């Protein structure tokens, strides 16, 4: 049953990340990330309760509090002060091509598993790999700082799925990862408030 639920969770995580690719409204992407994190948090909570792991329950609660609630709220508040960034009119890669590449990345994720990791007995590992690639693609396909940050957070969500699939990392490490990601989001939020992303060629950054 655990595997089926994991597959279902992974499936929705991937669908939601593909949905992010064609979104022009940054605020929608923030909400989608929140939904993704809620799914992840509830899944971890279920696994913790089902297996009776207190550490997993605490991690699930930390995930929900930081990723599903605090980070989207913080980013939402930041973007409301910069309403001109709420919509990204021009993607680096067209929407149609983005979706196509996203689907190809899903196939590539499976190939990576099949060619490299199949011998290690975790058939579901292609799901977090695909999700990680989707996050990375969101970063490179967008110039909007919020979308790039969400891409990074999607990658971090995939890490939690991967960690769950292999063997649970020690609690102190998992908790450290959550706090690190929170730190990155807070600092990135501060930078985004003042950063102008329309610069093309800054002499001091050339070469």
């Amino acid at each position, binding site marked *: 049953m655990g595997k089926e639920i994991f597959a279902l969770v992974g499936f929705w995580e991937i669908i939601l990340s593909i949905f992010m690719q064609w979104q022009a409204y940054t605020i929608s992407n923030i909400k989608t990330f929140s939904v993704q994190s809620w799914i992840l948090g509830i899944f971890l909570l279920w696994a913790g309760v089902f297996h009776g792991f207190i550490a997993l329950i605490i991690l699930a609660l930390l995930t929900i509090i930081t990723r599903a609630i605090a980070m989207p709220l913080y980013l939402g508040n930041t973007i409301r002060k910069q309403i001109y960034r709420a919509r990204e009119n021009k993607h680096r890669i067209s929407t149609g091509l983005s979706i196509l590449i996203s689907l190809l990345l899903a196939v590539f994720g499976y190939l990576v598993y099949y060619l490299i990791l199949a011998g290690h007995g975790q058939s579901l590992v292609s799901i977090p790999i695909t999700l990680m690639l989707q996050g990375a693609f969101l970063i490179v396909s967008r110039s909007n700082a919020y979308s790039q940050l969400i891409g990074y957070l999607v990658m971090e969500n995939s890490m939690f799925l991967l960690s769950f699939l292999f063997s649970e990392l020690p609690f102190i*490490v998992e908790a450290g990862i959550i706090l690190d990601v929170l730190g*990155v989001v807070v600092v990135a939020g501060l930078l985004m408030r003042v950063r102008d992303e329309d610069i093309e060629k800054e002499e001091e*950054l050339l070469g």
Partner: protein
Amino acid sequence: MIYLLPSISATLGAILSFSLFRNKHKEVSVLASFLAFVFSIFLLFEPDRFTAFFYVDSLSKIFLLMISSVYLGVVIFSIGYLEHSHGHFVKSCQYFSLLDIFVGIMLFSVTLNNFGLFWVSIEATTFATALLVASENDIAALEAAWRYIMIVSVGLTIGLVGTLFLYSSAHTLSITDLLSRQNRGSLFFLSGMLLVIGYGTKIGIFPMYTWLPDAHGKAPAPISAIFSAILLPVSLYPLIRFFEVYQNPSLSKFAFVLGFLSVMTGSIMTLNQRLYKRLFAYSSVENMGLSLIGVSLGSYALFGTIVLIFTHAFAKSGVFMLTGNMLHELKTRKIEDVKGLIKIMPKTGLFLFFGALAVTGTPPFATFFGELLIVSKTINYYGWIVGFALFFFLVCGFLFINYRVINMVFNDETKPVSSAKESPFTFVPVIFITLSAFVILIVPIFYRFIEGVIK
């Protein structure tokens, strides 16, 4: 617990300079850095310690000393530097507080016995320092800080996958446990590759080095100094430990190739640099690439790496601090606008020249000795052609950097000479660059001290 004293000093400095002693934040930071330095010297004479949480051997102690020395110098130099700069993204107390916490994390990370916590602490240094990179608060500085936080965080995510694979393969992340286990499968090897790529991003290894020239170029001079001298070697530290645990010829080749490409890129890129801070940033790419080569080869090449990063820490931090003097007085970042530095700012000019010689591995600086060990081991392991190619790129880096520096320091043909006031804090880089010249004298002591780590 005693090994945490330097880290606790820095962390307390961060807390106090941001809260209770905001008005005295500079004094608090100087005191914290001085205490961290004293504790690090004291710890040199303490026995090694291996517990479930700590892994402190002579290598950790050398890192502690290196970090705390540069920390002390950078804090003192920052006092003078900040007085001359305005419009900062962070206030003075925030600057010192972030600097303290950043160093506190680094001092903590080199005492750990856990690859997971290595990752957590290295990632923590990213967000602790991103605001410092943006400190100058102009478009380029903010962009550099953004690139830094995004590229490094994404790169380190790959390192996290490596850590997960490591745990999945060995069921432990502790160095002591990993050293005692022999059964290592292909997943272990894969984790090694991902760790090299992941931490390599933060070290500034090809092809993930792109954040480094931007961040080093736009950060305030003392921050560039501490980045190049300390942050990059501390990010290399987990890889030194990993190669201590796992010697695999294929993984060694993989790290060697990345290191070689970094040396090549770093040295070639110095040819077309127009800004002096970016010139020295690419020199860091070159030096870190060479250090990774030394780590991958092990044995006396690893000793070469340790000598190289130790000497480089003093010389490069000194050089970056001197670039801060130049920027304040000459108001330009361009190499072509700086002429006759030796007449305008004699101390800055002279020690920039010596510093450039030190970072490019000129004898009698110990960087030369470190590079010699690494190149000779390369010849030993991969043959003359590869060894000569490596040597060739090192010579290119040496020529390109020193040609530019000599032009800046001694050539005064095109611009009229007018003397400028040198910061009274110039004594810090002067001491650092002088110290880098004396490291060669302690190399035998260094070797005896670290003999247990070199296999």
